[in-house]
């Protein structure tokens, strides 16, 4: 099933399922996951398409891109890989970080994109409470002081700071730390507005990583977009026990796409 992307400088590890000759689907997983996290949902569409589930660069078995690569670099690399594999225009399904890539793909490589389906997608600044913003301001200041002190006096405060205050994803990002920092600080408003592909936005009501509010704002930004709220599901379990809810919403969307 799994094979290596050929002819590419950076080889993309991928899994393929489904029926050859049917409409191509490209599945992009979330931060810290691999292509396998999309398999449960992709499997439900095996009779309807030809599916490619990628390990994104730096995750699973795919080598990372250059240090500090942003989501636009990920999208460009994916576009090159899709062209090399003869894929497209495809329906691009992205979860979380993969959702950022889907938005970038629609904006930068419209010829490769038939439609985008975003499940718990990130990419817009979250609205935070004043208390949260104050705390973040202070912590950032402390972090900068720690770095300054390390530089001036050779202390090791910064690492301790990271261990104490950094998020799990940040601590575990390794070589991808630069990409991670760029991704969490990026704002895809312009990219979302630029895309012309129809978009389906699926968000779980209990999602605390990418709350439904983000999806509602994407719906306002993306010219042809449909927002769907799935009550009772969170950021990750929407892909597992929520798979049938996603399946139903996606089927309706794909049907409407055919008739459009």
């Amino acid at each position: 099933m799994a094979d290596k992307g050929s002819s590419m400088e950076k080889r993309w590890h991928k899994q393929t399922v489904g029926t050859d000759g049917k409409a191509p689907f490209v599945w992009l997983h979330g931060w810290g996951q691999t292509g396998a996290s999309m398999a449960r949902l992709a499997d439900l569409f095996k009779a309807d398409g030809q599916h490619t589930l990628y390990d994104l660069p730096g995750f699973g078995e795919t080598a990372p891109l250059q240090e500090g690569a942003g989501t636009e670099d990920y999208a460009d690399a994916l576009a090159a890989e899709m062209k090399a594999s003869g894929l497209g225009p495809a329906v691009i399904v992205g979860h979380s970080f993969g959702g950022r890539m889907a938005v970038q793909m629609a904006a930068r490589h419209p010829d490769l994109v038939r439609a985008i389906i975003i499940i718990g997608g990130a990419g817009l600044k979250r609205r935070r409470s004043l208390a949260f913003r104050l705390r973040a301001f202070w912590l950032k200041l402390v972090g900068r002081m720690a770095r300054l002190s390390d530089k001036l006096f050779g202390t090791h405060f910064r690492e301790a700071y990271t261990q104490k205050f950094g998020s799990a994803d940040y601590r575990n990002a390794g070589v991808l730390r630069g990409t991670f920092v760029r991704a969490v600080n990026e704002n895809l408003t312009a990219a979302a507005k630029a895309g012309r592909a129809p978009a389906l936005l699926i968000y779980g009501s209990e999602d605390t990583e990418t709350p439904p509010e983000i999806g509602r704002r994407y719906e306002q930004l993306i010219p042809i977009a449909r927002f769907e709220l799935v009550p009772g599901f969170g950021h990750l379990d929407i892909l597992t026990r929520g798979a049938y809810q996603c399946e139903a919403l996606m089927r309706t969307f794909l049907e409407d796409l055919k008739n459009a």
Partner: protein
Amino acid sequence: MADKQVIAVIFGGRSVEHDVSVLSGLQFLEALDPGRFEGLPIYVDPLGQWWTGAALKKRSRYPLEGSETKDLSQVMLDLAAPATGRPQLIAFQKGLMGEKRVSLPFDLMVPAIHGSNGEDGTLQGMLDFAGIPYAGCRTLGSAATMNKVFTKAVARTHGIKVLPEVTFKRPPKGKFLDADTVAPALKAMEGMDFPYIVKPANLGSSVGVGKADDMDGLIAALMTAFRLDSDVIVEPFVSNLTEYNIAVRRGADGTTLTSAIERPKRDAELLDFKNKYLAGGEPGGPKLDTGPSEGMASLNRVLNPDELTDAQESFIRGSASKIFDELALAGSVRVDFLCNSETGALWFNEVNTIPGSFAYFLWEAAKEPVSFLKLTSAMVDEGFRLSANRLGQTDAGSSGATIFRRG
């Protein structure tokens, strides 16, 4: 947009299979098409009280302990709703002016309670009585398949191969079974000697099943099984036992459809409750909000096992379809077979009208895969159809059976 139909899924129950039922019920709710239906969970706790509330959809909420019911409402089923109206649940809410009666209407009920008081026709009978549409098997099929002796008798009548069996009744209080009463009864075993297998006649799910290597073991196993059921059956133990299960349902065009065949894998010699349902997880451990791939489907099972010959496969498919048709079953039903893997001999064993997780994984692995999403819609549509067909015109005037003058 037209109003969505409210599908009430009832699970839990006063049965030994309470926990498995919770999982099946939640999975069904999660697989309902959000474009057509709205799911309404109804949880029957081990005391028999009924609850509803959005919080019930979270797996992490179970087991529900006494004080954790603040965000739930206790409900009753309205059995006396007019036939023309929607079925409803009744809840009482405390307000400033005392208790207020609140009704929660729904359109169809899906029984997801395994075992007694759910799968055995009692719940179905009550719903028929109240004129409430429901999914799955009707009263007759549910009751018939709950009794293993009766099911086997029907199978025998229709030429489906089954093992011989002897039925024992629970001895009256203060009396015990002894070898002198048990031995003569075993003559009906068609010459098949120990070891035997002992099962309660009316329970599914392998609870209370025991193996007996000799007379002492048999009496001990009988007494264990009598704690769960008043009728217990003894069958010859099939050596080199392999089990095969298959799901059956009726297609929209009326044809009988069969699913993939599964062979449950197991380590222990005997399939007991822990092996069947809890493999890979600690009993009593926290149940996390993970996917449908968890639980039933991720247990050790082989789907579409390749060791079956064409003749064996056609026996399994043919017998399963036949019993489904003869007992007029409905919904997604699982039919279980026993096999001696050395000789290849196969016997029909039993029918589960509400199998764990509705056997969705068998349909998803079928030659023409049916996703759980499609299965739930098909079961709901069939339920509406069957319930509507049941009574037709029933007012006294339509049959001329009037005594009192009308209008």
